[in-house]
């Protein structure tokens, strides 16, 4: 059953009491919250994800977003995230309760799911062309990801890329895309029908909004994919979209820095990163106009077959 099939009153009731069982990518969650905006956020952004009955007994992560148990709460309402009784993150203002849940779920995956190598990267796919987009904050990765997804690309990940340590395949976790600051009006302009949350403004880093993952991406979330391209995006104020080959050695170094659990995995992390670099072509991608960037990617996907790649430059090693 999908979450959107739960009547809103029933969703709120389950959430406030025993919690809702929900599956996102490879992880099952038991989410509990007495804060109404969390129920609203789940209904808007997780509608296509699978839910099961309250009697479902096993969940990978038992999480809760609730007001803190302190008198201070009366003066400054807050939302806290707890993972099975532990509160690993600082509370946020109550108006950002849904953001608290998203951050908390990222924390759970990053600190528990060491059966994967976890990269801070986005992954998109079209016509079998699978591009991993690792990037520093502010590089425009999420904006590019959102633009591609709105143009028919499959979303496999926005923040956390899960790489199976044994097979090197990417396991999808197509949760809502997190957009910040100027990205929000950019995405609205690209597609006014894009489903975005109203930006939350009481953050220290500027407005944040979430974009709902496409229905088709959620439907295919259990199909793993093998990465073909490693593209390092960078948004610039002016200039044409440009794709340039990048050395594998340099890419490897950057990749290990973007691997969230690299130090926990040790030699195994090195091995998986090596495997990833060996099976992908590495590029820097610079863009200033989102529609132009999408067009470049669309051309690459259209020209991609399983055996040849139609681009000017040879693979850089």
């Amino acid at each position, binding site marked *: 059953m999908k979450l959107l099939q739960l009547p809103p009153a029933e969703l709120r009731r389950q959430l406030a009491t025993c919690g809702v069982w929900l599956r996102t990518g*490879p992880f*099952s969650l038991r989410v509990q919250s007495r804060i109404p905006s969390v129920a609203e956020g789940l209904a808007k952004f997780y509608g296509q994800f699978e839910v099961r009955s309250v009697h479902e*007994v*096993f*969940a*990978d992560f*038992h999480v809760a977003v609730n007001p803190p148990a302190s008198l201070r709460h009366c003066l400054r309402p807050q939302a806290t995230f707890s993972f*099975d*009784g532990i509160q690993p993150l600082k509370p946020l203002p109550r108006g950002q309760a849904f953001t608290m849940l998203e951050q908390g779920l990222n924390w759970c995956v990053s600190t*528990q*799911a*060491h*059966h994967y190598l976890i990269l801070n990267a986005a992954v998109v796919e079209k016509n079998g062309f699978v591009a991993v987009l690792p990037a520093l904050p502010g590089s425009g990765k999420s904006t590019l990801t959102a633009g591609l997804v709105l143009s028919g690309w499959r979303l496999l990940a926005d923040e956390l890329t899960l790489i199976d340590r044994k097979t090197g395949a990417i396991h999808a976790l197509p949760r809502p895309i997190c957009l910040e600051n100027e990205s929000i009006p950019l995405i609205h302009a690209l597609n006014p029908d894009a489903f975005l949350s109203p930006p939350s403004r009481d953050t220290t880093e500027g407005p944040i909004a979430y974009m709902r993952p496409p229905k088709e991406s959620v439907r295919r979330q259990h199909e793993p994919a093998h990465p073909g391209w490693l593209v390092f995006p960078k948004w610039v104020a002016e200039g044409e979209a440009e794709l340039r080959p990048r050395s594998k050695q340099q890419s490897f170094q950057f990749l290990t820095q973007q691997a969230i659990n690299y130090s*926990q*995995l*040790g030699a*195994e992390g090195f091995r998986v990163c090596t495997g990833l670099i060996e099976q992908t072509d590495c590029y820097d991608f610079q863009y200033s106009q989102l529609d132009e960037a999408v067009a470049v990617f669309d051309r690459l996907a259209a020209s991609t077959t399983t055996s040849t790649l139609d681009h000017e430059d040879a693979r850089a090693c």
Partner: protein
Amino acid sequence: MINAARLCLGLANPMQLGHFSEADWDITLRQARAAGLLATLYYAALGASQLDQLPERVRAQLGAARHVADRHKGVIRWEVEAIHHVLDRIGVPMIVLKGAAYVVAGLEASQGRIFGDIDILVPHGALTDVERVLGRTGWVQEDRSTYNDRYYRQWMHEIPARRHAQRGTVLDVHHNILPLTARNKPRAQALWDAALPVSGFNDLYVLAPEDMLLHSAAHLFLNGEFEHGLRDLNDFRRLGWQFADAPQFWHSLKKRAETLDLVQTLAYAVRYANRLLDARIPEAGMPGLSPPETWLMDPILSRGLQPNHASARDLWTPAALFGLYVRGHYLRMPLHLLVPHLLYKGTLAKFNEQALHDANQEKLAQFRAFLGK
């Protein structure tokens, strides 16, 4: 009542793990995580050839934890070598204690274990030199309040903890296994006389098996904090099973407990290891081992030794934990020191220590800058 029964069963008798239901696994994994026993469960299942019987989601979680634990072992080994290198240069011998010793000695109890701090024991007379050389090689004392300094140096069996400014590892340097003020008085020299050298290193030792087991019991039952009580009790069980191969081991263990004034402590450890973890330690092999006041300690310790998880607590758990906390301090300090200490820790300490913590963070940052980091 409160229950970590499935977790304890899984540890004590891992052949049963393949029969656990999904509901069993949901609660067992969460309790194991809270108790620091996820990776231990992995190895228990592996040893009993049960891994393939487990649901895929369970195997994934256990496997993830095990991977982190294995990596951690390598880090611990490296750290012990680094510390030994520093002390060997000034000719100070060192005994590795607790978890780091299990790793260095390649004991079964090291499998799946995550260890927080590194604990070592050095001669009491060498403490000043040891502190000086540790300070010069990046090991910074974290809490420098006058009170904490006096607490550790005058009363306790260890100096204040030091953290490596670059690597973040915490090192506890002991000169005995129990405080100077404690009611039990094991002699440090007896530990040194029986200590076993670690091959390949000069002046690096681990405790003799009997002493290692007794230290494990002392650490658990003469301490006030039971955050990892079940894990430590499981260590006791695993060490005991490995050492029990030696002939007459239990007999020599009892005699050693008498020498080190730890008979009651051993009695508690054996009782609860047998009752909670089915350790099957032959109490008949250690006549006269009779833990006192079990009418009181059974309900308290059966709560104190549960994982720190909501599913394993009841209404009496907070009172039991508080009682154990006070008891732990009572056993380490005479009353005329204990009462003011508890008052201080409950009140003034919070204000003083926050200010000092901030000052220390600044010092650590300066040290890192000096190293060009």
